[in-house]
């Protein structure tokens, strides 16, 4: 009994330690998703490279969507700012990075020239540009009623996308420097951040010990049959996950501080917050600008590794996807947002594709009929396959149907999302429960308190009687 009791106690203590339980929740969810994908991969007969690739892909996408989700959580979950221009801020970040890093004299004539700056500088410029776009929106829009921010951000995101696809900005010259967005065909992202990882494996940056190290890593992966390109992708994903960890701590710290406390108050009641002496305009602007910078970073890490970005990446869908991440996870919870990203990517985004592959591998799917009428018609003949084939042919549409169903379910069954019920203490101190329950030294009711029961809730009714 006592041993079992001890185990129960220690589990309970760990669950009460929210940091610990958050980390295990995220790791546990990712592991469960990996197992699922591995099983599917086995049934599809993937080789080891294919398996690792699939896991790498969902991890990578989860990380970038989680990062963008954390930025939106800062806007919406903490501050109550209704940003529906996410795609626009992401686009600004990526394009600024692309234009800053494109070579001044490109080798091919079709490529657009740029400023030729080094990759790290380009990334920094991208983040700053997204933040600046946020500032430009914040200054006028945050003075107005809350819903105006939605209109302004939505407008901005469309303006940004259309400008980047217009030929006018495709290539232009300012002060003797030619650069451009490449119009509809997009822009080559020379400042691809994953290039740094590739350089590490290919040259070790020309530093002896580093190239020895990268060689050793490649060899050990090769011994289990994993190719160099997979190792590079995997390593870049590890780097992005590391940056996500950094952003997570950043946003968490912002929330658990006097800054976050004021944001929380603004979300609840801006007038009251003003009446208590808070410059709510400035606080909202800071929150908005920081979030926009993070959106830029997330987008650069995501699109950068593709080597090319086009304006149609930044349609309203992208904004909707990030919102879905936060809605699934629960506005206000950073852990929830990461979980939301994991579930969004593995089930809604990549899931349907995987499902199609399984079905294709298991059953003999006929060629897709050309119309839904034909597909439905064959059900009458007791044959479901044409309908299935038709649906798989329209995978993008299927994803949206699935997305709609999930959103309706969440809003009806659990509007606060997975973790939205849990409140983070808005302080650098843990002021969410008494020190006696916490067992640390943070100040609680003063020791010399005249009432030994202060803080235990025993006197609950005394005040009201």
């Amino acid at each position, binding site marked *: 009994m006592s041993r079992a009791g001890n185990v129960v106690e220690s589990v309970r203590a760990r669950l009460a330690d929210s940091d610990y339980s958050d980390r295990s929740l995220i790791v546990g969810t990712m592991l469960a998703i990996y197992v699922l994908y591995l099983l599917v991969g086995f049934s599809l007969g993937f080789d080891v490279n294919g398996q690792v690739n699939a896991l790498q892909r969902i991890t990578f996408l989860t990380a970038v969507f989680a990062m963008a989700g954390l930025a939106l959580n800062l806007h919406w979950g903490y501050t109550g700012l209704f940003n529906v221009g996410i795609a626009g801020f992401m686009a600004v970040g990526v394009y600024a990075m692309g234009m800053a890093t494109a070579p001044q004299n490109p080798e091919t004539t079709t490529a657009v020239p740029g400023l030729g700056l080094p990759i790290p500088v380009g990334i920094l410029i991208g983040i700053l540009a997204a933040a600046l776009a946020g500032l430009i929106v914040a200054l006028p829009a945050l003075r107005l009623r809350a819903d105006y921010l939605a209109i302004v951000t939505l407008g901005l995101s469309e303006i940004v996308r259309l400008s980047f696809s217009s030929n006018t900005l495709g290539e232009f010259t300012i002060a003797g420097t030619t650069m451009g967005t490449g119009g509809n065909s997009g822009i080559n992202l020379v400042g691809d951040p994953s290039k740094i990882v590739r350089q590490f494996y290919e040259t070790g940056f020309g530093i002896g010990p580093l190239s020895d190290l990268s060689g050793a890593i490649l060899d050990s992966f090769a011994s289990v049959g994993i190719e160099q390109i997979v190792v590079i992708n995997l390593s870049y994903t590890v780097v992005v996950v590391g940056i996500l960890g950094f952003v997570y701590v950043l946003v968490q710290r912002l929330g658990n501080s006097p800054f976050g406390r004021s944001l929380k108050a603004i979300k609840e009641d801006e007038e009251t917050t003003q009446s208590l002496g808070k410059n709510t305009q400035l606080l909202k602007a800071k929150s908005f600008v920081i979030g926009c910078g993070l959106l830029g970073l997330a987008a650069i890490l995501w699109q950068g590794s593709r080597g090319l970005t086009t304006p149609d990446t930044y349609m309203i869908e992208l904004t909707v996807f990030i919102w879905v991440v936060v809605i699934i996870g629960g506005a206000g919870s950073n852990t929830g947002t990461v979980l939301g990203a994991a579930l969004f990517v593995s089930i809604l985004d990549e899931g349907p594709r995987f499902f199609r592959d399984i079905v294709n591998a298991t059953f003999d799917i006929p060629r897709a009929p050309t119309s839904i009428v034909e597909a439905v018609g064959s059900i009458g003949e007791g044959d479901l396959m044409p309908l299935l084939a038709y649906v798989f042919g329209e995978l993008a549409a299927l994803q949206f149907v699935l997305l709609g169903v999930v959103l309706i379910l969440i809003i009806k069954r659990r509007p606060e999302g997975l973790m939205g019920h849990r409140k983070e203490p*808005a302080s650098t101190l843990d002021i969410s429960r008494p020190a006696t329950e916490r067992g640390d030294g943070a100040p609680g009711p003063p020791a010399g*308190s005249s009432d030994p029961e202060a*803080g235990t809730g025993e006197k609950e009714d005394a005040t009201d009687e």
Partner: protein
Amino acid sequence: MSETETAPTEQEETAPEPILSVTDLRKEFSGITAVDSVTFDIEPSGMTGLIGPNGAGKSTTFNCITNLVSPDGGTVVFDGEDVTGMPTYRIARKGLIRTFQIARELREMTVLENMMLTANEQNESPFHAVSPGLRDNVRRQEERLLETAWELLEFFDIDHLAYSYAGTLSGGQRKLLELARALMADPEMLMLDEPFAGVNPTLEERLLDRLHALTQEGYTFLVVEHDIKLIMSNCERVLVMHQGELLADGPPEFVREDERVIEAYLGGEVSG
């Protein structure tokens, strides 16, 4: 300017500088004159009552003074500085804090978070919040704030509710929290809009007790209240508003005798 009758004040020559002086304050809402050329001065330390029937313009006067609603005319001088049209938060930072008629505690925040929020001299920089070394400074500052918060919660006897969400508090407890929270801002003057509404007699007694203690410490209060008896017996001075105008201004005995005040209250009630 209305023909406000002013009581003869004995210590006229020794009267201190007013902490708040409102001159000719005016506010119209689509035809209704909610505040009509209201003029009054409040001397530092002490409790002044502001009474008047429903819709007299008391809350709107508060809103105009703090510029939550921008006045159509008039000036507001607080602590020797013209604060007319200044952003609400800056007026609050100068030491003029108001509470709301319907307690507006931040429901999704705990009582302690509500308290900690208000302190004005705290470091709200996002950069300090995330930087390893600087965050420790913020933490130390918060530890000091937390001590003040606990002291005030004890003063108002709501320390046992510290970890509860403000939304779960009873009406009376919310009023106490609002007052405690306002004091966290270290104000010079507090404008309380119906702090006793919905508060039971025992709690009302305690609240009054605290207000008197704070007055002794030098705080200045302007209190809106419907319970005339309460105002008459606790305030050294009473302002009466009716249909946007200031009807009377003076000590309770003086106001109680005022014809127009009696008329505004349909007689009887005032003398009670």
